[in-house]
């Protein structure tokens, strides 16, 4: 996930912002690459089915460039085709974290000045998820990609409960520690298990009457800010997030609420 983000305005020459189509080698050629398997053995009819599958997707002139029988009644296809339905790019609005990412020193300074005490943060990788690398990247001393994690911030009191933490335990500890913010990591997403885990925690917090007081943040490779809001969180951080982004947001939000 390359996160070099340019500004929205920038476009290739001659693009109509109201009608953006995929680009192969000529503006508006609509070229798209597709691959999939079908649960039918390879045959001329199966190839035709692959083409029709692409036609279902609105692809004109689908070319099946590769097809292979996988055995046992399966076949695989690589297809290129031309999409003709454009997207109205000019009208897209995406909810964004309003934070301006501050630096390590700025953040500590701001907390000191505006809050006058340390922010208590508690983090965990919840449920049966044992992937700690992500939450560690945000919280641990050594941090991530050259940025320190929350534990290193003098103005954060950071508690990282590690992996496989049941929502009940996380909540109990948050209450004990009077946490200002809870950070939840969810990495395993098969069958959308992360969504139900996260929703459950938000509900539990609500039920405890703590939802207003505690800043609730989630993160993971399949999380984004939009999903987080839908799940009742205050923010969501996706792949490639950095500790300062998170620290900035949490500090600002805790300060705002006090």
């Amino acid at each position, binding site marked *: *996930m390359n996160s070099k983000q340019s500004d929205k305005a920038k476009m290739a020459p001659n693009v109509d912002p109201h009608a953006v189509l995929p680009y192969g080698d000529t503006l508006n050629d609509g070229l798209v690459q597709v691959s999939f398997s079908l649960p039918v053995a390879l045959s001329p009819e199966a190839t035709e089915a692959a083409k029709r599958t692409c036609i279902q997707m609105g692809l004109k002139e689908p070319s099946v460039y590769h097809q292979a029988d996988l*055995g*046992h009644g399966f076949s695989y296809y690589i297809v290129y085709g031309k999409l003709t339905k454009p997207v109205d790019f000019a009208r897209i609005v995406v909810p964004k974290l309003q934070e301006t990412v501050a630096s390590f020193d700025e953040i500590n300074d701001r907390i000191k000045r505006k809050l006058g005490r340390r922010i208590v943060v508690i983090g965990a990788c919840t449920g049966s998820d*044992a992937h700690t690398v992500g939450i560690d990247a945000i919280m641990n001393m050594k941090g991530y990609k050259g940025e320190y994690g929350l534990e290193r911030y003098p103005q954060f009191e950071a508690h990282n409960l590690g*992996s*496989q933490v049941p929502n009940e335990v996380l909540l109990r500890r948050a209450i004990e520690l009077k946490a200002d913010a809870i950070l939840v990591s969810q990495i395993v997403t098969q*069958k959308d298990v992360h969504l139900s885990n996260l929703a459950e925690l938000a509900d539990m917090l609500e039920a405890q009457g703590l939802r207003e007081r505690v800043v609730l943040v989630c993160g993971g490779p399949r999380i984004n800010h939009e999903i987080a809001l839908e799940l009742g969180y205050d923010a969501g951080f996706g792949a490639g997030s950095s500790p300062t982004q998170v620290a900035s947001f949490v500090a600002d939000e805790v300060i705002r609420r006090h």
Partner: protein
Amino acid sequence: MKGMLDLDLEQILRCRKAADLVAKSVLAFAGERTTVSIERATLRLLGVEGADDTGVPLVNRVVEKAIHLVPGGIMLPFAKAMMDTGSNAQETALAISNGQIELCEDAYQSKTVIDYADHLAAEAVARIHKTVSTRNELLERLGEGQRPLLYVIVASGNIFEDVVSAKVCVDAGAQVIAVIRSTAQSLLDYVPEGTTTEGYGGTYATQANFRVMRQALDEASKEAGRYVRLCNYASGLCMPEMAVLGAVERLDMMLNDALYGILFRDINMQRTLTDQAFSRLVSAAGGIIINTGEDNYLTTADAVESAHTVLASQFINEALALRCGLKPWQIGLGHAMEMDPDTEDMLVLELAQAKMAREIFPDCPLKYMPPTKHMTGDIFKGHVQDALFSLVSVMSDQGIHLLGMMTEAMHTPHIHDRVLALQATRMVMGAARHLGDEISFVPGGRIQKRAQEVLAKATELICSVADGGIFNALEKGHFADVSRGPESGRGLEGVYVKAAWYSNPIEDLLKKQVEWRGASNNE
């Protein structure tokens, strides 16, 4: 013989000695303990299967009911109950579970019970031997193809979908099929029952699922004209039971590494090291190749800086395995290619390390793991990372090659992900088949130096572990950058110090049959 890397043989010897000290003390510790899972595993060896109507496995019911007997071992009381009622193990277990009979302590002293138990033990062991000879016959008849063995995982959560995927993989050249377990299973203190069609990040490991997949692979083996190995996990809280199920259902390979459970599942170290001793004994007898989990260290620790921790741990796992009676060909030590692919000379360093592992453990198959940590959503990049991995693997003559998937950063593999991976791997390995034979390394160059440096650092680490003991090393976070205390983690409540009268005739018989060198603390 001086290898291509000009490694210091004396250093290697030093590592082996230190590792053996570590292993000895671990096994001494384990020898003084048993666990609920070891006792349940023993019951499984006697033939107890299935669950009661609430879904709790019978073996769990029995051990729960007779929890006070665990320090003395469940087998003699159970054998006595069988004798007393004249019923078989399954019936006996049912009766106990129903509360119709209760196990009692007076079995331990009875000569007739002991004799009967010995007889049951002989039967249990014979059952294992039968799977061994079936496997050997099939291997003899069909062979299993070129090394490295191409190992792929299936993990849809649904065992029947997994069967379909597995067969497709075999067609595409897979030589080992591993069924990955559902996310939380290793933390369950029981083995689920029956065939299953729902799982998260994997498919539950159950005896029924083992059978379904074994049968499917036997069919596929016949069609493919080569024996296809089945792999699962003897790990988590039920490690000993899994080892038993593997042995009786003719699995061929099992991931088995207490250190993995400690570091990555937060399983209590006392529990799982004790469990592991029993498990490895069973696997030794079952002719199973175990795979260890050092490769995982490089997902949390840096692959360049921490390469030596992998090597140190391999020495320990080798020693632990040998002492439990496993033969070198059964010890699939884990290592991995986990460096950031954008590291300059990544391939040079990886080749050095892969070759180093090969030279240091020449008789172990080695389980070589593909890039995972630095895989991204860019499947095209990922496919090339995996190709480089295949290249290093074939150049360095690995034994078990776990196939990298271009979709590693996204999902457990789709049906064609595996086929594309197999095709690419076979192409690369074919294209570079003898490349490794055709080159030598420049003396004193980057490759030799890297290997020497890693070995030197490993020597230092392992000597310190030998000094301080494994518990201490784990607490200090020497492995995987993770720290665990001896009392922390799950499952400690299931560990029991053995009573003086502890008896487990199956274990005793197995120990006699393999070159077990674990129990004696005064070697």
